[in-house]
């Protein structure tokens, strides 16, 4: 159903009231996914209203896509059907927060920045520092499964999501987990929602454990002539007693972008005392430019650390010494006035890359740390062979974000991107890793849908206006038989974003 059906719109209006339904073409176009425009947009004011719409969709066999802030608009393969956009942003309360227990329950449509501004009143925070931070909703952050530099110390969402409420494909309000930090009562269904791209359920509420906000933190940057030296420092740090908050390595080309550009996404401070932007509850501003301490033509290792003065001193001393032993060409310790300009860019790497090229193609590569050096060499060589500019960031737990940035999107560059993609997939799986294609121009999607003509890898796209974010399981997925089983357990009528992930 690509055009508005007046009957459908009035049926949804009958369920939740006309004021909560958008049927005008221009309004619906905002919710387009891969050029598919929904027939109607519903903006329920409660979980019960949302469930009402899901029941209606299940009855009528209509396809439905849940939305947060639309920053990660088109996660997944192009949907095979799309009738109703379910905008969850009116569900934006924080019904439970027990600072003494460090537990939080928040509606899915609440912005992450708003949640953190609230938590900071109690010197706590949620380490869900996803890209498009100032705009993203908590539900979208979980459904997209995107990580953040903080995973180095806090893990990914699966390590701090303790429960969820959601609507299953029959329109029933369900829950799993709870509001306690340790709990083995029933199946951990909420973990399945992380990265599920809306295909299993409509998330209505999420429960988290919260964390003490770092009172005093510093940044550390070391520059290197080669990736090998930067990786050597990574290894020294990981094998030392130090446990930095973040640990990322940037290629010189990415460092160049950081030095020259400012992300378009408005910036809000995450923590108090960050001078890079206003206080957490203030109006968004732009991220300040990076300082001249940043040697943009070299490889960079960036770490953040926090603690009491003697702890900060220890980190600064040890990190500087390790860097020297790894042949760093320079090192710098950053304080609260300089640190945010770099960390804001690290967090907003995806938006910045997408702004840099309309055909930006970004891969997420999961690999064991011992394979980082050889894989970095492989993917850079592949980029050279297809003659495309590339940039990369290595998250030190063993995740590489690798971007190819053609100057323009056309058939010729699409062909080269497709060639590079299949080689990257091969190189990665040869060392036991997993490739996920995060962002790619729309034209690339079909060419990657079935590379060998038989196996259809799971593609996910995350669209941000002009560019697409694609998540793709590259090779034949090992859990490929289990995925559809789970999907039909949650969504027996296949109404949640059919075709997106499965």
């Amino acid at each position, binding site marked *: 159903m690509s055009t508005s059906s007046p009957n459908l719109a009035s049926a949804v209006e009958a369920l939740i009231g006309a004021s909560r339904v958008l049927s005008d073409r221009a309004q619906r176009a905002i919710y387009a996914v891969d050029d598919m425009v929904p027939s109607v947009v519903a903006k329920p004011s409660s979980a019960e209203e949302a469930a009402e719409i899901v029941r209606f969709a299940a009855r009528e066999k209509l396809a439905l896509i849940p939305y947060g802030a639309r920053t990660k608009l088109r996660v997944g393969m192009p949907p095979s059907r799309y009738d109703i956009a379910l905008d969850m942003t009116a569900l934006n309360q924080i019904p439970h927060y027990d600072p003494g*227990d460090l537990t939080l329950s928040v509606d899915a449509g609440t912005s992450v920045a708003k949640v953190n501004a609230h938590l900071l009143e109690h010197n706590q925070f949620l380490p869900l520092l996803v890209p498009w931070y100032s705009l993203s909703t908590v539900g979208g952050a979980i459904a997209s499964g995107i990580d953040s530099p903080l995973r180095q110390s806090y893990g990914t969402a699966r390590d701090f999501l303790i429960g969820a409420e959601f609507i299953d494909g029959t329109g029933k309000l369900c829950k799993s987990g709870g509001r306690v*930090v340790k709990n083995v*009562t029933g*199946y951990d269904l909420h973990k399945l929602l992380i990265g599920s791209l809306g295909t*299993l359920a409509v998330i209505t509420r999420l429960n988290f454990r919260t964390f003490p906000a770092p009172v005093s933190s510093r940044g550390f940057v070391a520059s290197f002539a080669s990736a090998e030296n930067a990786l050597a420092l990574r290894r020294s740090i990981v094998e030392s*007693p130090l446990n930095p908050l973040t640990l990322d390595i940037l290629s010189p080309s990415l460092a160049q972008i950081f030095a020259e550009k400012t992300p378009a996404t408005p910036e809000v401070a995450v923590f108090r005392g960050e001078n890079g932007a206003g206080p957490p509850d203030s109006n968004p501003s732009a991220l300040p430019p990076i300082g001249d301490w940043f040697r943009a033509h070299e490889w960079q290792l960036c770490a953040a650390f926090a*603690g009491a003065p003697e702890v900060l001193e220890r980190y600064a001393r040890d990190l500087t010494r390790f860097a020297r032993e790894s042949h760093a060409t320079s090192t710098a310790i950053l304080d609260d006035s300089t640190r945010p300009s770099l960390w804001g860019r690290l967090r907003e790497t995806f938006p910045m890359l997408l702004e840099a090229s309309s055909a930006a193609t970004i891969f997420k590569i999961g690999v064991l740390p011992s394979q980082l050096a050889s894989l970095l060499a492989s993917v850079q060589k592949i980029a050279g062979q297809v003659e495309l500019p590339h940039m990369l960031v290595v998250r030190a737990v063993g995740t590489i974000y690798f971007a190819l940035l053609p100057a323009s999107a056309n058939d010729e560059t699409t062909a080269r991107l497709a060639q590079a993609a299949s080689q990257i997939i091969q190189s990665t799986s040869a060392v036991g890793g997993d490739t996920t294609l995060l962002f790619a121009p729309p034209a690339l999607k079909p060419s990657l849908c079935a590379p060998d003509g038989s196996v259809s890898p799971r593609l996910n796209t995350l669209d941000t206006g002009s560019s697409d974010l694609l998540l793709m399981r590259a090779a034949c997925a090992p859990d490929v038989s289990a995925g559809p089983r789970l999907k039909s357990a949650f969504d*027996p009528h296949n109404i949640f974003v059919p075709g997106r992930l499965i």
Partner: protein
Amino acid sequence: MVRLTLRPMYSGLIREFEDLLGPSSVLYRPEDLLLYEYDGSIEKGRPNVVVFPTTTEHVSRIVKLSAEHHFPIVGRGAGTGLSGGALARTGGVMLVFARMNRIFELDVENQRATVQPGVVNYELTRAAEAHGLYFAPDPSSWKSCTIGGNVAENAGGPHTLAYGVTTNHVTALEVVLPDGEVLRVGSTHGDAPGYDLTGLFVGSEGTLALVTEITVKLSRKPEAVKTLLAIFESVDDAADTVVDITARAITPAACEMLDGWTLRAVEDYIHAGFPTDSAAVLLIEVEGLAETVAAQAAAITEVCHAHRAREVRLARDNAERNLLWKGRKNAFGALGRLAPSNYVLDGVIPRSKLPQALRRIRQIGDQYGFQIGNIFHAGDGNLHPIVLFDPRDKKQFERALQAAAEIIRHCVEIGGALTGEHGVGMEKSELMPLLFSDADFALMRRVHDAFNPDSSLNPGKIFPLSKGCGEIRVRHSSSSRLRVD
């Protein structure tokens, strides 16, 4: 449909098992089965056959053979579980993983280990120790429980306060589904795309699949450790201290409470150095950088004194530290000397509600005529009240169960959950409706059926038998001990 009575071809099945595994790996004589009728809980359930596979291929074959003979299957590690999870509630085949105990790989650089499910928790840490690494989940039974059992139950332990429970340390699994299919989920590196099936299988109590291989993260041993023993004249003061430590966002590696009654029993037996004249102690450990540890220990000491701690002792050396932990980890054994049987409960509450929960437990004990002890993971709100009773006294046993159900109900009333680390198993299946609605059960049942459609795997666990949602497939089961009313 699971058949629960023995069929004539039962002896045929035994022969097929013996052909597959050898006669020494198949038990079926009643006297041999007796041991497998129990686990660490107060539940019972006797299997018809016990088999000891050594390979994934064995497991897959056993599953297929059992299905052909319509026998249900239950997996079991060391049988130390505390909720009846590894008991054959409806009889059938018990698959014991004790001989699948190989450590396949210890990857020091990447801090990963790949193990068979029968590897004992402590043995993995012992193997990793030489490289400065260890496996973080450390249940009290760590010297005998298996990693497969830890995965099935999503086991915790004292140090999971800072480091997370089992699920936070598992990156990949190989599992065998009830139809014999071998499935690999997750990835060694821990960043597998797609649905988080590893997260679903960990803690599913053997009701979805049998785990045959596990890849875990190994943690780096901290540079410095300090162990504090804070001694209090009242349980309330100790509980308030825990609330305050949490509220000040100090995260120790472990924060355990022993009340006066239990620590006297423990001290009598283990001589760990616990003060027998106190009302409660907190055993608190801080780990990390030397600088961090010093500051945390000082902050914790200050909080303890603010809540009228009589004394805060610092373990002088490793020997003293190990002795304190020995006292904590063997506490349940020590209590076994006081009564014919003890019932260790497992409830979890918001940490801010700790003092009121402990007061309510005391009231419930008074009401039912039991002295209820408390040794538990105070730092994460995971209560372990212990009820001592004589199982031969039927009335007393009934009262013990009633008191237990009331305690768990209180945990739920104040925002907690039924179980923090022991699992639902047989013990708490009938209490599940306290937390979950018919819609929740219907979805959980569909997820269950997606992998285990005939309930041939560990039937009669987690889901309430008395609740009319989904098909009740278990016919002749003993009903759960704990009930809603």
